[in-house]
């Protein structure tokens, strides 16, 4: 898959995003890492130009409840409904329902085993191929639950 890994918010803590990028590469994916401090519209532009299949959003600065919905809305406006979106970083439990309701299909907190992310992506591909909804703009309901 072509996966864009985006780090949003004004902080520069990008180690998580870089670790994930490398792990995804080692699992055979093509990863486009956007660099830090990209705005939602810049990220959406990158998704379009790179014809990405998935987007991983990394957020640690507490801006997840504004920036993630903003990104998801922009994606839907651009009719990128099939894009698979997942998020990581610091996203407290109490805020997660809102994030899932935006169309994000998985949230991975600190200390997540990278295998979970691979499993999520594989599951997403399976769902997509069998016509089930998995994109950010498709029918809500399914999201990844980490065991």
């Amino acid at each position: 898959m072509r996966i864009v890994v985006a780090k949003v918010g004004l902080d520069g803590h990008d180690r998580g995003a870089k670790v994930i990028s490398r792990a995804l590469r080692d699992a055979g994916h093509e990863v486009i890492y956007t660099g830090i401090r990209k705005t939602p519209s810049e990220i959406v532009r990158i998704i379009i130009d790179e014809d990405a299949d998935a987007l991983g959003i990394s957020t640690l600065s507490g801006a997840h409840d504004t920036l993630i919905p903003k990104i998801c809305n922009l994606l839907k406006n651009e009719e990128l409904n099939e894009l698979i979106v997942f998020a990581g970083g610091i996203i407290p439990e109490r805020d997660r329902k809102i994030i899932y309701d935006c169309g994000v299909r998985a949230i991975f907190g600190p200390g997540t085993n990278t295998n979970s992310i691979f499993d999520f992506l594989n599951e997403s591909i399976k769902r997509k191929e069998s016509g089930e909804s998995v994109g950010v703009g498709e029918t809500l309901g399914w999201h990844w639950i980490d065991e």
Partner: protein
Amino acid sequence: MKLWGGIGLMSSDELLKGAKSGNRRSLSKLLSEIERGNFIFEDHSKVWALGVTGPPGVGKSTLIGKLIDRWTNSGEKVAVLAVDPTSPISGGAILGDRLRMINSDVGDSVFVRSLATKNYPGGIFPKISDMINVLSYCGWSRIIIETVGSGQSEIGITAFADRILLVDGPDRGDIIQAEKAGIMEMADVIVVNKSDLPRSKATANLIIESLSLGSKDLIPVLLTSASENSGIDELVNCLESLVPDQSRKSLRIRQILLSHWTSLVISNPRFEKIIKDASNGSKSISESISLLTELFEKEEN
């Protein structure tokens, strides 16, 4: 070839129409179709493509950022193809991350696409050629193909451009490596970046010296400091007034064919077995060489 997408079912021809009329999504989807081998576009007539290569850490991306600024300021549209090597082990790649570090997202006048070299026969060749042609046809007046010049095939990719810029930095020592790879002879312009640092003038002189010992025509060697924004205008003028040298064309074709060949060898499934047998001693090196030769002789029959 039909495609699904938010834009509905579209054929490659419809995508081409959309791309030409400025639809970025169509352009992006079309490039993917080319990458999958589903679409070919051979019209090369309006292409202006610059290959940029050089060792890591010399400030290539910053320099490219400056070129983009200059050209977009004068109303041009710049497309960048950032090519990175696919991992031979995992088959994955981290693409274009160095380019993303600069603020080149200047809206509608810049288009950046990241590509992996891929390990299958031919890899991204010759699809880069079709991509350049399509981009040009759709109004992208300056196209930059960027690779990190670490290996033969990476350098070979820049050969698809009709002019090549080699970027080096002071004190790198890589220029000697570049000389061995023949890349220096392939370049149309050589830039020593980070001219704000002390040894860059000396490095530039070294390059000029080794060039004058070789080819008949002297390749311009320029000093720039991308971070301090100096030497950029001279570089732009040089690039724009460059007339692609026909004698270098055969050098480039040589490079293209050699890279293609290496790609074929690497992606042959039996190549790994030959390496394995030679490594654990079950075959000698000369036996391995014979096996390798036989691989390709057999396929010709």
